[in-house]
């Protein structure tokens, strides 16, 4: 009788191979291994725990359905991240229909206030411990609009080029560039403000 593989010790590549043959235990091990990362990406984009849970679950179901399409050009985790990003982008588009137009977005498209912000010259994160720094960055990210945060996440965390971001977000490269510019300047200003608040 063939013995079952020891799933926790197997590399992703083998688990994917087994899962493609409908081995659900192998797929479950992949889910356990990468669930935090996929959930974290969904949460960083949606900023809502429940939506992030739902979308990450949906991503795993789609991953199972499309497994035959995964050819190993990227890592399995990267492939799954792309799936959850696309689901998040779809959901953000749906949500936008019900959301009031962002004032920040209007500002940015008219060459707004961020151009008047002074350049931040002192390191606003100096002296912070890693955990505290990460929390502060996350706090600042939460303050951006969905549109600005999405572009920043796709560029800085997912390492996508302008062209790729424009394709996924369905806007022009020029819009990607100005949103990215605004988002970075806003982040710098927010981090500097947190530092100032700390000192006063």
């Amino acid at each position: 009788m063939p013995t079952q593989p020891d799933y926790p010790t197997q590399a992703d590549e083998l688990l994917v191979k087994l899962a493609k043959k409908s081995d659900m235990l192998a797929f479950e091990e992949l889910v356990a291994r990468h669930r935090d990362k996929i959930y974290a990406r969904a949460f960083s984009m949606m900023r809502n725990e429940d939506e992030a849970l739902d979308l990450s679950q949906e991503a795993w179901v789609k991953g199972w359905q499309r497994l035959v399409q995964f050819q190993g050009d990227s890592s399995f985790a990267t492939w799954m991240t792309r799936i959850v990003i696309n689901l998040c982008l779809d959901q953000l588009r749906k949500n936008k229909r019900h959301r009031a137009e962002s004032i920040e977005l209007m500002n940015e498209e008219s060459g707004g206030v961020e151009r008047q912000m002074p350049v931040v010259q002192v390191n606003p994160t100096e002296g912070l411990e890693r955990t505290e720094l990460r929390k502060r960055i996350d706090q600042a990210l939460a303050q951006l609009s969905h549109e600005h945060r999405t572009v920043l996440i796709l560029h800085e965390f997912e390492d996508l080029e302008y062209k790729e971001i424009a394709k996924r977000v369905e806007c022009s490269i020029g819009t990607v560039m100005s949103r990215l510019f605004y988002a970075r300047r806003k982040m710098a200003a927010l981090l500097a403000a947190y530092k100032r608040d700390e000192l006063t």
Partner: protein
Amino acid sequence: MNQDTELNLQAYLDEELSEGEARKISVQLKNDAQANALIEELRFIKVGLRENELELKLPESREFYWSKIQREINRDVKVASPRATLRWWKPGYVRFAGVFAGACALLMLSFFAFDGQNDSRAMDEVEGTGEDMGSITYHSDKENMTVVYLFDRDPERMIDSK
């Protein structure tokens, strides 16, 4: 500095410019303190973010999270798989029919042989739900606890605790 210049500086930082355009910016940066300060700010955020993404843990247990995914996968499998055409005359099916008949015979023999033996566990874990509700049962190894989670097939309707 106008907006185009600022965006070009950003594109230079992100290595999105052609070689010629990048060379022009590089020359500009040798003499333009304001441009340098801006690029440094943008670089600070770029590097800072890349190296400091907050790590999050999914707030549900492994078993519970997986049970919901598995339920959806199984539901989609039931919907997607077409009915197979049963070609009974094919050798595989004949073999199968033979094995099945043998198993049935053994089962009937066991009823006669063990008649009267009352297996009290025969009804264990039998569940039935109304047609409007589905349920998933899973067992948490950590807590050694069984949970039956009900879900409404129509999300608009819900049992509530009030």
